[in-house]
């Protein structure tokens, strides 16, 4: 019966993902993306990765997407932006890429289909993840830390220049 939960979550994830790339309003697209992420968090939980599920909600949906929304609010996109999006989303723009990706999709389905195995049905607890993370993958953690530091510095740099330019504009 719980498999059904998985299928429901999976279809929600699929549908909302499609909606994300077809919306013209950024905020609506973001809401769908968040729903999609929540659905995937459910899938994670069902697959026995509760820690990943929690992280998906806390970090992905709760922090990264907020950042997105924050920027969307700052940009204050109006109806003109929506109209522009609609212009950009003409069929001649999306039909070709969609057909190509569809072909790609069927190729992948063909490759992946017939892998008989099921998942284990056993959850991997947060404790195990933590232990492995700070032993085997310590270097990875350090690297991820550097990456984040670099992103911090980079985004600060971008934002700072932006702010200064803004101030000059106003003043």
């Amino acid at each position, binding site marked *: 019966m719980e498999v059904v939960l998985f299928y429901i979550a999976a279809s929600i994830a699929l549908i909302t993902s499609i909606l994300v790339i077809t919306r013209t*309003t950024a*905020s*609506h697209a973001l*809401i769908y993306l*968040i729903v999609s992420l929540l659905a995937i968090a459910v899938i994670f939980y069902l697959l026995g990765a*509760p*820690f990943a*599920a*929690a*992280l998906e*909600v*806390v970090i992905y*949906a*709760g*922090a990264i997407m*907020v*950042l997105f*929304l*924050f920027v*969307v*609010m*700052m940009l*204050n996109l109006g109806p003109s932006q929506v109209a522009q999006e609609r212009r950009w989303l003409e069929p001649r723009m999306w039909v070709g890429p969609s057909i190509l990706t569809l072909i790609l999709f069927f190729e992948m389905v063909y490759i992946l289909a017939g892998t008989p195995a099921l998942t284990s049905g056993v959850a991997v*607890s*947060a*404790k195990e993840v933590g232990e492995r993370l700070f032993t085997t993958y310590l270097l990875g953690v350090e690297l991820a830390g550097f990456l984040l530091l670099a992103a911090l510095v980079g985004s600060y740099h971008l934002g700072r220049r932006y702010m200064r330019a803004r101030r000059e504009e106003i003043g």
Partner: protein
Amino acid sequence: MEVGFIMILPLVVGAMLGALVLVWWERRLLAFLQDRLGPNRLGPFGVGQMVADLIKLITKHDWVPPFADRVVFTLAPVAIVAAMLMGFAIVPFAPGWHIIDLNIGLLFFLAMTSLAVYGVLLAGLASNNKYSLLGGLRSAAQMVTYEVFMGLSIMGVVILTGSFNMSEIVRAQEDLWFFIPQVLGFVVFLIAGIAEAHRAPFDLPEAEHELVAGFHTEYSGMKFALVMVGEYLSVILTSAIIVTLFFGGWLGPDFLPPIIWFSLKTGLFICFFVLLRAAIPRPRYDQLMSLGWKILLPITLLNLLVTGAVVLLAKG
């Protein structure tokens, strides 16, 4: 995975009623703290006030501004209340009195508080009003910021307990309530909790003096009521979590049942929230941010470092 389905209905009803009572109780207590009387005209001690407020809110014109994003505008207050109610799912009121005893209970709480941001954010965005937008922006930055410290501050508790499970955390405090070893964590969590609930003094997203009513400027009627209920629910939830994490949850001398102990402690913290509102002025926005990043972050990191070191030393 045990789910206490029977608990759902009483909990939802109880939480809603609690929020309703809190409407009255906050005004009353606030008044006493300010040497006033507060609402006292309706019913004994003015308890009828909450019914009156409820009737007023129900019968008020539920207006959606024509310039607003209709769907999002309607969904936002629902999101606020839903996230908060979900948060109650992992609270252990007494031994066995919980909806779900998740292994990652604490993470679930964090996840729910982080989802609650969306209600506020979307409300601000969908209102299409400059005050609402500014309120939304403020709450986004504030809540994302304070979520970091909130998460980090309770890691000390997790280290001490070795689990994210709420019931285990409570049981781990049988000898000593965690607010003694984790006093720094408690302080940070308390402050972050206030900020997450955007209660005074950290109610900058709705600061009346600057932003009319912040993100809920355009709300009226039952939608407004939901926003307010969401706020009171978050007060109750934060108090309940503080009690669970740092004050031994249901634990207490035997002469009272555990649920009473839990309720008493929670009520005390709710009153403390009201006291804060009565006493502390609202900081400036940049002060709020620098408090977070320049004071609370080092404190939590220090707390985490010391706790980890002590635990390692005790084990080693």
